[in-house]
């Protein structure tokens, strides 16, 4: 768990090529790094800094600003319970309390086995199904306490592995081509070949 793998360096280079200025690829590359390790290790941030010719502090400075980028380890399943207004008035406070009891951790904590991190989050734009939550940014709506227990059981047993990839994996569909407007179309990158799921359902 130190630096980016050779394959991920390749992905990083392809991302850099999409932007007029390399630094614009920083956050997309940090998502790749988080997909690799589940969080952003100091070593990996230093490696990303090398790739972008930045100071490691600049990478850390950007990473530390954003709620989705973790500079400390988190569980395999990041459970994000919304308690903003629409959810609040539809029982989100009670749901969060139940989640804390069920997982045996306070919001912000991680279970001892590293399977679950629980967090209270701001609105995740799923308010038509309040109260709602996300697990690794896959959304679940109208969540009752019983639904929550079932969800935790399913996640722990691996029954939702297809729907909910491990924490850090954000987008399982890869861009197939580089920039083409300025010249003849690029040959397809090998990015696409690893991702069978081109039309997520």
């Amino acid at each position, binding site marked *: 768990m130190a630096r980016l793998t050779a394959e991920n360096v390749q992905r990083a280079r392809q991302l850099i090529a999409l932007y007029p200025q390399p630094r614009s690829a920083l956050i997309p590359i940090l998502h790749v790094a988080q997909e690799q390790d589940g969080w952003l290790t100091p070593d990996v941030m230093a490696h990303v800094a090398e790739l972008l010719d930045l100071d490691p502090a600049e990478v850390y400075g950007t990473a530390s600003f*954003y709620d989705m980028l973790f500079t400390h380890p988190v569980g395999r399943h990041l459970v994000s319970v919304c308690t903003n*207004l629409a959810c609040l*008035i539809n029982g989100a406070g009670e749901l969060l309390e139940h989640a804390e009891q069920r997982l045996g951790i306070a919001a912000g904590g991680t279970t001892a086995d590293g399977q679950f991190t629980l967090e209270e989050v701001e609105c995740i*734009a799923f*308010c038509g*199904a309040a109260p709602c939550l996300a697990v690794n940014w896959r959304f679940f709506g109208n969540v009752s306490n019983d639904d929550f227990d079932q969800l935790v059981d399913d996640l722990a047993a691996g029954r939702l592995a297809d729907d909910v990839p491990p924490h850090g994996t*954000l987008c399982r569909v890869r861009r197939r081509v580089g920039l083409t*407007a300025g010249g003849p179309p690029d040959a397809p990158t090998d990015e696409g070949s690893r991702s069978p799921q081109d039309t*997520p359902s």
Partner: protein
Amino acid sequence: MITDAKPIVTARIGVPQSWTLRAYLEHGGYEGLRKALTMSREEVSQEVLTANLLGRGGAGFEAGKKWGMLRKAEPVYLVVNGDESEPCTFKDHMLLEEDPHQIIEGTLICAYAVGAAQAFIFVRGEFALGLERLTAALNEAYAFGAVGRNVLGSNFSIDIVAHPGAGAYICGEETALLESLEGKRGFPRDKPPYFPAAIGLYRAPTIVNNVETMSNLPWIVTNGGQAFADLGIGRSAGTRIFSLSGHVRRPANYEVEMAKTTFRDLIFDPKLGGGIPEDRQLKAYVPGGVSAPWFGPDHLDMGLDQDAVGKAGSMLGSGSVVVMDETTCMVRAAWRITRFFHRESCGQCTPCREGGGWLDKVMRRIELGQGREADLDLLLDVCDNIAPGLGWPPQKTTICVLGPSIPSSITSAIKMFRDEFLVHIKEGACPFGR
């Protein structure tokens, strides 16, 4: 009233696999782009000006006018704002997941009209499925020849990049979004001079438009700007998606004709919100995102009209309406919104960074039954320091409008439900039991 205007941007929602190229082409997809490419750039811009399309992100600025304000310099960039984070707004989330090709087509039309060198669709990081569907749709659109070199066989070439955010409300603010797109912390820039149309992405002239705004363009080009302007009333032209949530039987996104449809229609009509569960009484509602001052039942017959709502002291903002019934503790509701702003402050400006924290603290102690009567004046005093005069639209003491948005819920709650604060303070507990 509910009009018989057909939906524009949600027309394909519910079509099986609506996010695929196949479904999109079967339902008129890329026809607007095809037509636009037979027109001059100026003609396309003129149609959008005629349409009177107000930006659907929150500020409500005329899209066509924005395009006309570009500084004359090369290159020009187009950035589509899909960082939807205003609490209780969930329309762009839906558009990204259900109809990404419509966003791509709108982006292409806009890029053509403004002569963009490259376009970026900034997707809120949390929208994992939206990102996957948009990326897959872009792959399809490239293969189809709608994006990239010589779009649909024309001389127009453009690349579109789907860019993931990483979780920060402030990045919905257009200059913070540009900083984030440049790989930095999401710190808003001072306006002036950093109006994106003048000094935007990489200091180049840049158009930043919302996802729903882009999604309207294929229809406008296909049907003509006048057909769009004929819907709604005056400046509030066309249809618009309203995200309805809170205490309603049918919380969802509803696309309705602007101005002619009222808040009462939206909340109570059986085809729309369907009213409040168990026929409880309406207490108040947020008319346009939690940055907006609240309305009570006395404003229910007001149309969903940009200017009328503004004149009445609030805003349609991001188009989210949150209904709060008689079971709602208004102190708790206002405190939750305050805590949101405090958490999401980027920290650049003192009134927002510190003021938000103070307000959070005072609201918390009132809700927990530890407040004192002087706290009401204290709250208003701190609010006044953030947004002097407490008028609407608020005065600014900060770089961006996040800070001046903090007072809205507190001043609304105190003005409309002062007694509820006093009960909390006198009884030393929340009368709603939590």
